[in-house]
């Protein structure tokens, strides 16, 4: 069942030892996202034992938990109070932790409307490369004292420090959600998506693939009827399971060995790249299966102001994340040094030189 355990001191000792020996550590939460990112050399350091919800007051809309707390435990606890993690974190597999979800910074289908992990993270307790336990942010919604170190941890893939504890804004779960399915050619679906978004319909997820558009709406039966009257669409029955399979990439689309690209770009931006495509977030997130050269894919994205991540089936020793401007890359290295002077945390996991 749900256990609670504070391993701060033990982890701190491990870090001090590693820093003295300049021995890299490969941080490991639930190991559910091991496929994601570059391969990091280093001695595995298990973090999942440092777990337990340490504070949850539903009327404050904040939950604080040790980073090794299973996502499932957090989601169950919130659901019992009619609340949710608004970024709908992907699980990919069993055992995922809240710390891993924050460190990877990935949002699920609800992300454009509920917020990204970085939008919802309010504070962290962090173990840095000197073995110091530091606290940034807090448990309140608004806090502009000092630089926003907490949000810098989101998507850092553990390269800046070990997350010990995170405080996250939660929201009431919508009392009802319904999914409508539309069938049209690709352009028709794109036009409809754009219309639904710009009209401010209560959209909480979208999926477009192969002429099928599914849209999840947080509304009651009456509003749903009005929406259908105006825009059409059939009520889709197996909605809950479908969105979960999309979130966790358990749909057939994701089940092959072709390189899978995660493309982030403006929602209506045109994109001409060959290969099967699946679109989420109203078009702002697109999944592309393509063995075309990385440079070609990245250039197409850069043209739209977006970026491309080789999400699955890439070479873990190669370039997975989008290359940075030279000056920005230098700033990354300097930031890394400020947090982790000996370079012991997940070296190479995000970028080779980080």
């Amino acid at each position: 069942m749900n256990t609670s355990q504070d391993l701060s001191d033990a982890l701190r000792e491990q870090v001090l030892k590693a820093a003295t020996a300049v021995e890299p550590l490969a941080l490991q939460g639930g190991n559910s996202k091991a496929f994601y990112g570059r391969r990091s050399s280093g001695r595995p350091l298990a973090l999942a034992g440092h777990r337990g919800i340490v504070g949850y007051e539903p009327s404050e809309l904040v939950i604080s938990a040790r980073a090794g707390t299973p996502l499932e435990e957090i989601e169950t606890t919130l659901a019992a109070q009619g609340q949710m993690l608004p970024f709908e974190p992907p699980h990919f597999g069993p055992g995922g932790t809240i710390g891993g979800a924050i460190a990877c910074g990935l949002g699920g289908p609800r992300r454009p409307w509920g917020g990204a992990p970085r939008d919802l993270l309010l504070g962290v307790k962090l173990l840095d490369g000197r073995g110091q336990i530091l606290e940034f942010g807090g448990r309140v919604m608004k806090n502009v004292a000092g630089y926003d170190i907490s949000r810098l941890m989101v998507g850092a893939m553990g390269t800046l420090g070990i997350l010990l504890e995170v405080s996250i804004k939660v929201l009431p779960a919508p009392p009802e959600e319904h999914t409508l399915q539309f069938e049209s050619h690709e352009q028709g679906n794109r036009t409809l998506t754009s219309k639904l978004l710009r009209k401010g319909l209560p959209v909480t997820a979208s999926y477009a693939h192969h002429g099928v558009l599914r849209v999840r709406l947080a509304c009651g039966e009456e509003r749903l009827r009005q929406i259908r009257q105006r825009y059409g669409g059939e009520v889709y029955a197996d909605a809950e399971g479908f969105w979960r399979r999309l979130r966790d990439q358990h749909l057939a689309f994701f089940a092959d060995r072709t390189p899978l690209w995660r493309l982030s770009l403006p929602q209506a931006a045109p994109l001409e790249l060959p290969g099967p495509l699946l679109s989420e977030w109203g078009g702002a997130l697109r999944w592309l299966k393509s063995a075309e050269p990385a440079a070609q894919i990245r250039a197409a994205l850069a043209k739209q102001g977006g970026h491309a991540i080789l999400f699955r089936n890439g070479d873990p020793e190669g370039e997975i994340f989008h290359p940075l401007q030279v000056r920005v890359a230098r700033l990354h290295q300097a930031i890394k040094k400020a947090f982790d002077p000996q370079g012991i945390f997940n070296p190479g996991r995000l970028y080779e030189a980080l």
Partner: protein
Amino acid sequence: MSENDRQQRRAALAAALLRLLPADAVLFREEELIPYECDGLSAYRHVPLLVLLPHTTEQVQAILRYCHAERIPVVARGAGTGLSGGALPHEEGVLLSLARLNRILEVDPDNMQARVQPGVRNLAISEAAKPHGLYYAPDPSSQIACSIGGNVAENAGGVHCLKYGLTVHNLLEVKLLTMDGELITLGGAGLDGPGLDMLALITGSEGMLGLVVEARIKLLPIPERRQVALAAFDDVETAGNAVARIIAMGILPAGLEMMDNLALRAAEEFAHAGYPTDAAAILLCEVDGGSAEVSEQILQVRKILLEAGAREVRTAADEAERLRFWAGRKNAFPAVGRISPDYYCMDGTIPRHQLARVLREIDGMSRRHGLRCANVFHAGDGNLHPLILYDANQPGELERAERFGGEILELCVAVGGTITGEHGVGLEKIDQMCAQFPDPELSLFHAVKAVFDPLGLLNPGKAIPTLARCAEFGAMHVHAGQTRFPELERF
């Protein structure tokens, strides 16, 4: 530096910069400099060596390159509406106003975003987006005047943060000049950017890490309908509990604001909003969305408020009345300004359930310091704006107001909150940073600063106190009664 040396220094610097900039971009005469001596926190004033008003990003870049090479401090200024002294000039440096970079570069309705220069006013973005049925969500009370560059620097909020977030939640990308004049892009045109989230790090960094020269922001659909309920309470604590009830019932209001009796009476007199002036506190609760949901939710809100002990709940009869209800709240600061010669606005955030305790203790402090205090509260997100009423012409009152304010902020930290929710640290709250952060955290902040600005030329002395200053501040606490910022002149 003697006055004579200073004038010579000014003349030499002006001559050098006039070689890089058009004549109208360099202000050096005393009478031209005076209007820039302070921002919205007028208790602190410094005349800079020069005020620079560049027209283009290239000119900003040229200024930074020159100042970097010559080791001249640079303080950036947007519209000058900041309330924490973040844009207070440096006497040995230049004040760099970004007000002339004021073009809306692109409104892109299909992608629901806009690209703007830093000097564009917050409200001007919503006005430009309106024909497309879109708007820019963060709405600080100064939105008529404040500019987007300053909003990014301060991570500005507003009265609709609970549902729509702060600047950081509505910002996609910035083009930033570092102190050595290099142009970098952080974030992206999509919903996330590559690499570390340096966009979040820049947001709210108070002009310490770089200068924003372009921002790409999100636009949202204008809600089909908005409705507001006004609830009157006989005591503040009941009002505070009602806030928790609304949220516990699963409602996410677009705005949830509270005012105490002193604040609401001042606002009523100023804006004639129709507030019940005999109430101990009022709550404004706004819901927005589709017409049907709004009707349903406002009924629910009304029911919850009455059950939670509201004496009376009114809903706006029409759009005009809704705007009137808000006009009172949005003008609360100037309204309080009318009932007192001066006021000092605080900006702490607390966990909501601590509200009753915090208000009780503020009341005690008010009596101890012999100064009135009006409370305006972004109740939805726990952001408290106590307005301390004082008269700067009465000897000792400003110092008393500052001590009172300092105590409020330290109380906010003690109950698990923060010294600033949305106004920033600037110079004003630099000592309270010592109460909020231990030395190791402060050291890391300095290390981050050094990553971007190793020479410490951008906005020196603001936002993050030196460890030495904190050691002194700790000592000062023992000797109560000493003045803060002894190095600064008083007005």
